[in-house]
């Protein structure tokens, strides 16, 4: 017996645990698995969605980075790529979809419209002036629309962010609360 409460591992040759031990830093291990399978939500709002589809298709092949399975439900998704113009009518739906995603969850604001309202900033009475007014955004990808390489770069930034996370910290501490949409 080892220290009180702990049982010493039995590593003799007839023990079933003998070949099944893996010792790793828990943060590194969990972050490695998370960043290697960032599943985005199938969620295209406007022309940026075309570039998002191109990013998923064979030429740019987002599958190389573990982010291929675009889920058709927020409950299976880790990443929301807000691809396209968010209208005022759509904003409460975006917020609701975000709320339905399980933690940990991340948001990429893809394209000029979602970053700031883009070309609609002055006369677009119907356009939300930046999706960060309803959901907390992790990475902004500018462009009109951004090329698939730019979206991939945004994904890498998300992966870098995941790698810095500590599992024992309260998750996403200090995150600004999302704007409430009634």
């Amino acid at each position: 017996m080892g220290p009180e409460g702990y049982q010493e591992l039995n590593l003799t040759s007839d023990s079933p645990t003998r070949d099944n031990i893996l010792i790793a830093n828990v943060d590194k291990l969990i972050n490695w698995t998370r960043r290697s399978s960032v599943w985005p939500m199938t969620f295209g709002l406007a022309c940026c969605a075309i570039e998002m589809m191109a990013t998923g298709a064979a030429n740019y092949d987002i599958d190389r980075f573990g982010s291929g399975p675009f889920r058709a439900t927020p409950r299976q998704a880790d990443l929301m790529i807000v691809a396209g113009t968010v209208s005022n009518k759509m904003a409460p739906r975006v917020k609701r979809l975000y709320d339905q995603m399980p933690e940990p969850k991340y948001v990429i604001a893809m394209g000029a419209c979602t970053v700031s309202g883009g070309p609609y900033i002055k006369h677009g009475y119907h356009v939300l002036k930046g999706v960060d007014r309803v959901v907390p955004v992790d990475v902004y990808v500018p462009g009109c629309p951004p090329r698939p390489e730019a979206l991939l770069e945004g994904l890498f930034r998300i992966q870098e962010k995941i790698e810095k996370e500590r599992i024992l910290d309260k998750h996403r501490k200090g995150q600004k609360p999302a704007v409430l949409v009634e």
Partner: protein
Amino acid sequence: MADKAARKELIETVQASLGEKIAEVDRDVIDPFVRVEAKDWPEVALFLRDRCGLDYLACLTSIDRGADGLEAVYGIERMDAERLQITVKILVSKDEPNIPSVEDVWRTADWHEREAWDLMGIVFTGHHNLVRILCAEDWEGHPLRKDYKSPDYYHGIRNNVV
């Protein structure tokens, strides 16, 4: 699109048959049109559909003419190879922007009229479901009017930034 001679001929036929129901005709502009009063519009519409065979309302545009009022522009076509076409304009005042609905004449008028109501505030009397089609249900005002000011806040979200 039908050639210009055919369109002019159609306009002449309409004018000859309906007489004083046609308030104004302009054959020499790029898009020849007839203008009718709002109250005469249902009769003219039925004539165009049943007697001239124009069976398709392809387009309904609304224009803010400032002090003159609001204008609705109907592009009506015949669905055949020649695409015979006529343009009808109706001008109404901003105080009483009422135009009789023609959704019973052309099915496509249903959504077209809802759009013109939503964005320009023209009231199509007799429409069975005249509610907003593009803006949110609780949106206030008609955004494509020249004097429209977009709200500073919508559901607590700041809207205007410039």
